[in-house]
């Protein structure tokens, strides 16, 4: 297998992009990444696109060829384009497929992108489309919503480990603070603990400000074999690990409801693949679709002892200037969560950090970064480790 590097990135603004369509934002992100990498269309061997539910959100399937077409890559070059779906982990999985294609030697230059247009439908329809990431016939039909599933994780975490609503709210406050420094973020305003605790209850104990928003957005990276990466850029970012794990899709079938064991296993596999430990990671973008999800993630990935994630979040041990900065981009909570785009956006954020171009949210001396992307309530987890040095 060959080593792989990211040689270019692109990202749209995240938020309510009512003036643009799914194809517009996918093409915008892809073209930015191609320009950043300094490559031509003729050099592209394939596209992998993470997208969870374009059929529900914009009534359009077959987005692989649609985006290849509108990127100008279909009519003469006939570049192969593959859509990848794993609910909210679609982006991370598209990235992984792209990396595998380059690593195997089957392809040289691959564009891995992710995008979702969620605000073209009403909130009820969006919520229902998202509920399809859980088991429709045995969770959804019983009245389960996504916040409801994570609320049940939160309830048990509180019961077992003494995690509090204030500790969960601290995650949201921190991520909103980080979001103020991110020019593409959907929310760029500071909030307080009271903002979270006094917001509407969505699914007890999760308030509205414990939840990530409905968003539009797209992101893309260009991948190349590590051996030739320096031909394209002075600052390639090297892929040290790409891993994926599955768990039962229904929350009720998990051995421990407070542990997303797909995350834990994908994390362990990634450390092994990279020959690293959690102590070696300088910063991490985790899947904080809900505040409790970030608490579980930093435990499951080995940064904190099981049950300690809430306290650590409250004590500022995950802030940008701490030993393990978590979600310097503002995470899904403040940056926004266009479900298919998130996994790629995380890689874009880490690439910028390792290049030293992350602006105000730059983590000092960032050399090794991790991304963690979850589908559903933990049915799929995708983890990547990236390094500035080969």
């Amino acid at each position, binding site marked *: 297998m060959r080593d792989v590097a990211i040689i270019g990135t692109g990202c749209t603004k995240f938020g309510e992009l009512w003036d643009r369509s799914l194809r517009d934002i996918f093409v915008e992100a892809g073209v930015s990444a191609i320009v950043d990498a300094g490559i031509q269309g003729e050099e592209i061997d394939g596209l992998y696109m993470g997208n969870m539910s374009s059929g529900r959100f914009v009534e359009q399937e077959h987005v692989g060829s649609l985006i290849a077409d509108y990127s100008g890559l279909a009519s003469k070059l006939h570049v192969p384009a593959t859509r990848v779906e794993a609910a909210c982990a679609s982006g991370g999985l598209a990235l992984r497929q792209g990396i595998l294609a380059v690593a195997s030697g089957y392809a040289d230059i691959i564009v891995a992108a992710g995008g979702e247009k969620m605000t073209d439908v009403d909130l009820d329809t969006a919520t229902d489309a998202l509920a399809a990431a859980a088991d429709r016939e045995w969770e959804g039909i*019983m009245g*389960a919503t996504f916040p409801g599933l994570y*609320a049940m994780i939160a309830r048990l975490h509180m019961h077992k480990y003494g995690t509090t609503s204030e500790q969960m709210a601290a995650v949201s406050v921190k991520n909103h603070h980080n979001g103020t420094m991110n020019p593409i973020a959907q929310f760029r305003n500071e909030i307080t603990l009271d903002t979270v605790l006094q917001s509407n209850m969505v*699914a007890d104990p999760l308030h509205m400000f414990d939840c990530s928003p409905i968003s539009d957005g797209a992101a893309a990276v260009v991948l190349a074999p590590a051996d030739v990466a320096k031909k394209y850029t002075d600052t390639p970012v090297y892929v040290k690990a790409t891993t994926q794990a599955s768990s039962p899709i229904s929350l*009720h079938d998990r051995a421990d409801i407070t542990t997303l064991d797909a995350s834990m296993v994908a994390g362990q596999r990634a450390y092994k693949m990279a020959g690293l430990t959690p102590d070696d990671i300088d910063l991490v973008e985790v899947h904080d679709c809900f505040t409790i999800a970030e608490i579980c993630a930093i435990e499951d990935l080995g940064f904190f002892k099981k049950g300690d994630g809430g306290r650590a979040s409250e004590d500022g041990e995950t802030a940008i200037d701490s030993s393990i900065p978590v979600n310097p981009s503002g995470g899904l909570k403040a940056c926004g969560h266009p479900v298919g785009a998130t996994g790629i956006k995380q890689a874009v954020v880490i690439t910028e950090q390792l290049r030293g171009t992350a602006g105000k949210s730059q983590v000092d001396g960032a050399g090794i970064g991790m991304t963690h992307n979850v589908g559903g309530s933990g049915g799929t987890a995708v983890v990547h480790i990236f390094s500035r040095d080969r």
Partner: protein
Amino acid sequence: MTVSRFWRKIPHRYNLIGTHCTNCGEYYFPPRQMCPTCRRDGKIESYQFEGKGEVITYTVIHTAAKGYANQVPYNLAIIKLNEGPSLTGQVICEPGELEIGTRVRSVFRKLGEESEKGMIYYGTKFVVE
């Protein structure tokens, strides 16, 4: 949910029928065609659960799933059945009455409906024992 998709689930959803692997002794709900533990070595047969169990964790839903708006706030819980497997379901009681460890039993209830003239869904809910 379409009629055919719902119809296929009726025996299981109406009667809480799951499966039992006679090879490893594990019980499963929802039913499995293949034992997740023994996989192809398993011997799966139908099993009717007694319908009693305890609440592992729960939430009170305030922002409802599509078609459930008229029920809010409603209790949603993960219930561990006496035979071993866990499932997700609503518990009919006042919010606040429910705790982790509460003993519940299954009842046959309306789950929801598609519209005034649409299909009505029935299935299993739980009440405090």
